[in-house]
């Protein structure tokens, strides 16, 4: 699975909420094989520099000023799903419009093509030897975690529970939410259906699910759960403060935990050293910088200095 520079064709690009979209990138020929076995947590660098901006009246007010910036760098995006057919691999990306590149991405149409470098990074390690996988996600952290949940179907004996957080109901990057939330035994999110994953939702404003931080429901769950700590693996992806709190909980409970980090990346392939992640240097109390793009983006929570 050698990384490289490839051309992908847009299969679809659909809006799934206020500012969330799902885009399907189709690879054929040699690249189809390269992408056929990407791991959850891995990512691609997409060149969106020469795509068009949406029409002015379709750009949200708060992004108007930054939208016009003339961009030159690629952007990193991880996968939310993958579909492999003969000679064709489609990877799906769940993304949010936050600036000039993602706005341009939202304007791509089926049939357009983009230049893609990947697959990059390490991806999540599988929960070998565990009985329980806890999936914690916030905001666009959803993508890699959904991808992971789908992959975990290969581990039917493992219990999977997802903890989903957002500021408010409209910040939840899911296609079906409001009408199905609160069913027995946890909340229902279409994206996790069929993955045999129980879901719990929390929002900061209580507009859906329980009110509070996702880390609160994780914490409460752990407190009442009798599962052996060493049989649990926590996977987390989302805003850095959320990851810091997850890491803290995992450490205090002595649970293995993997976090997927984001950094501003200029290259994504180890050339520039821009994506520094501060990590503990053994037990020395000192720290070193690892590179998010090459050494990550998934790190063992215990090695990261938050």
């Amino acid at each position, binding site marked *: 699975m*050698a*990384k*490289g*520079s490839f051309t992908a064709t847009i299969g679809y690009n659909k809006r799934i909420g206020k500012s969330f979209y799902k885009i399907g990138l189709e690879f054929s020929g040699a690249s189809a094989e390269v992408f056929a076995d990407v791991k959850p947590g891995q990512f691609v660098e997409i*060149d969106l*520099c020469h795509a068009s901006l949406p029409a002015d009246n379709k750009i949200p007010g708060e992004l108007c000023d930054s939208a016009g*910036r*003339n*961009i*030159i*760098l*690629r952007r990193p995006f991880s996968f939310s799903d993958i579909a492999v057919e003969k000679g064709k691999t489609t990877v799906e990306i769940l993304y949010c419009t936050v600036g000039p590149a993602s706005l341009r991405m939202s304007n791509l149409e089926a049939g357009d093509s983009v230049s893609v*470098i990947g697959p990059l990074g390490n991806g999540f390690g599988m929960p070998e030897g565990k009985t329980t996988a806890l999936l914690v996600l916030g905001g666009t952290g959803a993508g890699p975690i959904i991808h992971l949940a789908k992959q975990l179907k290969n581990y039917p004996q493992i219990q999977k529970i997802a903890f989903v957080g957002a500021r408010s109901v409209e910040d939840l990057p899911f296609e079906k939410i409001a009408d199905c939330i609160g069913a027995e035994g946890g909340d229902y999110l279409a994206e996790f259906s069929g993955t045999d994953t129980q879901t719990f939702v929390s929002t900061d404003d209580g507009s859906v699910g329980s009110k509070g931080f996702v880390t609160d429901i994780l914490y409460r769950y752990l407190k009442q759960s009798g599962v052996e700590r060493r049989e649990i693996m926590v996977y987390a992806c989302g805003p850095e403060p959320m990851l810091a709190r997850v890491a803290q909980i995992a450490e205090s409970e002595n649970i293995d935990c993997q976090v997927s980090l984001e*950094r*501003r*990346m*200029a*290259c994504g*392939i*180890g*050339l*520039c*050293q*821009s*994506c*520094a*992640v*501060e990590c503990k240097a053994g037990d020395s109390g000192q*720290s*070193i*910088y690892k590179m998010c793009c090459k050494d990550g983006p998934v790190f063992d929570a215990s090695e990261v200095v938050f």
Partner: protein
Amino acid sequence: MNNNVDMSVDFGGLKLAGPVFTASGTCGYADELGDFMDLGCLGGFITKSITVEPRKGNPTPRIVETDSGMLNAIGLANIGLDNFIEEKLPILGGMSCAVFVNIAGKSAEEYIEVARRLCGFEQIAGFELNISCPNVKKGGIAFGTDPVQVAEITKKVKKAGGGKKLMVKLSPNVTDISATARAAVEAGADALSLINTFMAMVIDIESGKPVLANRTGGLSGPAIKPIAVYMVNKVYNEVTKGTGVPILGSGGIRTGSDAVEFMMAGASAVAVGTASFIEPASCEKIAAGIEDYCSKKGIDSLKKLTGSLC
């Protein structure tokens, strides 16, 4: 490939296979680029700045994008001289192009130390003296803006560097770049490298803080290209023309046409930095673009391109 264009370059007495270098700090240790292009396209490879002691570099965020450019404040993160000799020199030995080690430091002594320790290694063709890094508090740019200091450090490192070629990398953050260029040439520099990045800042208006943890950073990329071309042309006309001291031109080069512009302005070779982030095969494409241009225009040797601006 067109066999009618001689793509070799006489670079201050060093024979290069081609005119394209990787710029310091933008191409790792070459191994990463091997996945994307044939490294044989390179005329020269310049390492990330090396200092005597390892440096962690600056906290994150270290970069931010701007209109047609980017700011970086990596902070000369590097593994230090000892580790470099042990881990990286062997890899670089395998490269077919000329390897330049970029040297940085906080004092003249540190620069000298690096040059002294490395001058015995065959796989190194020369040194690039980074006296123009805007991202370190002490040293760096201070050396690079004062002609007297430029002359002094050039002389000392030249002496310490044994027979290795010495290329001095100039800062564009000066009133008259010809003054520092002249100082370097008169002090014995074998080549000049210009330009390094511009001191710059981006503010996050939501938080009211600079985006970069280091507050300021160096601006690179296509945004600065027209200033870089101007400076190369100025130094060529006012300092190096006729001296045989070649200029390595850089600053926003993205295409073969950009590279030809720099060479017409006076550069004997070009370095590619930011463009490799966008397109990891940039160096190869740029080299092919230069060759294409020459072939179309009936230019049989790159020497004729350098300084050909009417």
